[in-house]
């Protein structure tokens, strides 16, 4: 196993994991931004008469976009850290449990790692936010639970496949060098 260990530093893997996690946070933020802008704009459109509508639509839309942008920048810092740790964990899992770079095994390991990460995050959030984090309402359930979980698992799977590909390429390169 040690012989096949590729020449990629943990730092590089962590950086890639952090970048992927930040990108995932931005994807989530853009989804939230679009949803909130569309839904509030629909309400404004229904209430305000034509002459008074455009100004408040612009003000409302930009205020939502700005606050979501600020919030997601703050969240990006936290998710970069989680992404970096997650990537290192996944990298080592693939190294030790999938030495033959089997794709199915990669998907399974990545899914398990992402699911564990989501569970840990939920437990921590639940402990910190208590009643604030509720599944009582439709939107709360979708935005606090479903979408983040889907994004986290998708990032885990894609990240795992990319890491596995990198491992397999490096392994082949190592074999060629050795021969």
């Amino acid at each position: 196993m040690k012989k096949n260990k590729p020449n990629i530093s943990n730092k590089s893997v962590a950086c890639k994991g952090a970048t992927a996690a930040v990108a995932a946070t931005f994807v989530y933020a853009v989804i939230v931004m679009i949803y909130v802008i569309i839904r509030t704009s629909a309400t404004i459109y229904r209430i305000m008469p034509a002459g008074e509508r455009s100004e408040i639509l612009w003000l409302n839309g930009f205020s939502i976009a700005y606050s979501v942008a600020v919030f997601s920048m703050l969240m990006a810092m936290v998710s970069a850290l989680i992404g970096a740790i997650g990537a290192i964990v996944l990298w080592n899992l693939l190294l030790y449990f999938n030495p033959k770079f089997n794709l199915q095994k990669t998907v399974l390991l990545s899914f398990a790692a992402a699911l564990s990460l989501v569970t840990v995050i939920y437990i921590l959030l639940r402990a910190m936010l208590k009643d604030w984090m509720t599944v009582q309402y439709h939107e709360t359930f979708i935005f606090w639970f479903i979408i983040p979980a889907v994004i986290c698992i998708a990032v885990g799977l894609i990240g795992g496949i990319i890491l596995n590909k990198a491992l397999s390429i490096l392994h082949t390169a190592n074999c060629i060098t050795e021969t």
Partner: protein
Amino acid sequence: MKRITQFTKYTFIFYACIALLYWVFIRPIHKNWGATSEEINKKMPGDDLISRDRIVSTRAITIRAAKEKVWPWIAQTGQNRGGFNSYYWLENLFGAKMVNAKYIHPEWQNPTPGDIVYYGKNQGYERIALAKPNEYYSLGGWTFYLQEMDTAKTRFIVRYPSMEVRQSKWMGMYYYGLFEPLHFIMESGMMMGIRQKSER
């Protein structure tokens, strides 16, 4: 990986553009949305409750209804009463457990100074500082003022004092970065919601 890095970079640029547009064009307008300069400078009942360290916004909307028809919706403001008439689903995303009343509830029609008004379930609250039926209502300086334009038209003016942002850098960052735009979204939503219900 290249695409992911590119996406992150472009989103960052997009955010920077939004922030710039917000600060240059949006914030100066939303701070006093709908209010005339006379209304902005007008002395209002809750003004004595506002300290100098606060940033004050004044917003106004015209409602095609007599002020006696607007007042009942203001009187029952609060999470523990008839809601805030704003985007309840947005408030509930943060666990406020808000329900906006569809009707006027007689049991909430006599707000009295000292009564507690909750912003969300088990969240922050404020005591009613001033309340004069059909005239004004104030929650610690956040004042709702009704001005009669004619028998069927009312000017609904809302003055909001920020938290004491000038005292602390962190408080300022939180206020300008998140609280102020979010408060505008919810407050304007509330004003439009009250307008819609009063005009029914």
